[in-house]
């Protein structure tokens, strides 16, 4: 069984059906990139995977444990799934170090000293050890996003979900975040990434998933999707987005 299995996921907000039967799989160590026009349910899909949003129908398994089962301890599952938000969502009242250490201390019950040491190592990993004592409001957007990646990493997640991690960033800050993500992907982290950064997708994605109107239109390895997509709509979207964001991402 794959590390993550999503089967026939449905979600409706009022009259609008945002997810209309999404199925996908992610093997351990794989990185998949989800692309598609805004409002097609990409974020909702990610939020359903750790049940920050409750799906209406469909099942999800993480490492053989059914996430969607009412008997599952959802808090335990969430501590195993990192989530990187578009607008970082660092805890504003805590330093970078305490942001990373909080989950270790309160969720994993790691002793404070040990948690802080571990948090500092994670900040080192994203190149921000010198900012350990800075508060989020004293950091640039790119730095905040790297802290939030460190916060996810500290929990030793089996999988990290990225919800448009660079969309809120100034163009010159995008690179530093993508660099960290590329390093993670190459280091064997399992990642599901919603992004418009085609350069990143080409470089590290094992597969690209094109979503529109709540369904997966097409999925496949980047070289196939970029050069020879099966569905005309995929080609059209890729052309538009490459024009807009540039080839290199």
């Amino acid at each position, binding site marked *: 069984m794959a590390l993550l299995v999503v089967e026939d996921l449905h979600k409706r907000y009022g009259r609008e059906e945002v997810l209309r039967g999404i199925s996908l799989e992610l093997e351990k160590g794989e990185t998949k990139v989800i692309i598609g026009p805004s409002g097609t349910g990409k974020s909702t899909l990610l939020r359903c995977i750790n049940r920050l949003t409750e799906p209406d129908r469909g099942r999800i398994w993480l490492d053989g444990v059914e996430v969607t089962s009412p008997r599952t301890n959802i808090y335990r599952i969430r501590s195993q*799934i990192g989530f990187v938000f578009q*607008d970082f969502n660092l805890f*504003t*009242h805590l330093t970078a170090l305490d942001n990373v250490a909080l989950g270790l201390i309160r969720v994993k019950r790691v002793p404070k000293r040990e948690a802080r040491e571990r948090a500092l190592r994670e900040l080192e990993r994203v190149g921000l050890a010198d900012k350990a004592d800075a*508060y989020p409001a004293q950091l640039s957007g790119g730095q905040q996003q790297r802290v939030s990646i460190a*916060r996810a990493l500290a*929990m030793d997640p089996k999988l990290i979900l990225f919800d448009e991690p660079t969309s809120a960033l100034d163009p010159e800050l995008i690179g530093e975040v993508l660099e960290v993500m590329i390093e993670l992907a190459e280091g064997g982290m399992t990642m599901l990434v919603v992004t418009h950064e085609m350069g990143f997708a080409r470089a590290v994605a094992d597969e690209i998933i094109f979503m529109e109107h709540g369904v997966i239109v097409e999925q496949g390895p980047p070289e196939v999707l970029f050069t020879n997509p099966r569905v005309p709509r995929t080609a059209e979207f890729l052309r538009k987005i490459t024009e807009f964001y540039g080839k290199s991402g």
Partner: protein
Amino acid sequence: MSLSDWNTLVQGVPTLLSGLWVNVQILLGLIALGFVLGILIALVQVYSPKVPAALAVGYEWFFRGVPEMVLLLLIYFGLRQFHVPITPFIAAVIALGLRSSAYQSQIFRGAIQAVGERQMQAALSIGMTRLQAIRYVILPQALRLSIPPWSNEFSSVLKDTTLASAIGVIEVFRKARFIVGRNYALALPAFMLVALFFLVLTYLGNWLLGVLERRYRIPGFEMRGAGERF
């Protein structure tokens, strides 16, 4: 005012101060009660399912809607009627504390909502329960935001403690009236003295809140307020 009037007034100062001490005790009691209940009411209003949330709204409506004086009389004489042995002092703390909890709840609700749902989502995403998220992420931020509006409530309830005289609590206002009752010439200076006491207490309380506000400021996140410019 004659010299002997002045003499009486000066002799009355210790009495007035002992009365003021009762006001301070009522204040501490009611504000603590209002603080704890206020946070609970706010949390229920924001996070709980519909029925408890509606009850909390009803509670807040009642205790903000009934005049304080009526509330004092209702609780003191009401409980007496049912043979609950309640002292005027305790009745005052409860009545004013419940009233304050309703007002404080709206301060805390506003602050919790200003912290925002995204902080909650981030806390949940690392595996925290809702209670943990509230305890370690939401409240530490919301309480900081609450300090300026809370200083309003503090200044307001401080003065409300004089209403306790209506159910027989011997506090500073009541004592001033004793003094004035015996010598009408002292009306103006005695009440001016009471006014001065409250001005000093208001100043001290707000100074303390200013210290707290600066002590717990989040670096990089603040705008300087009036409190620091003067």
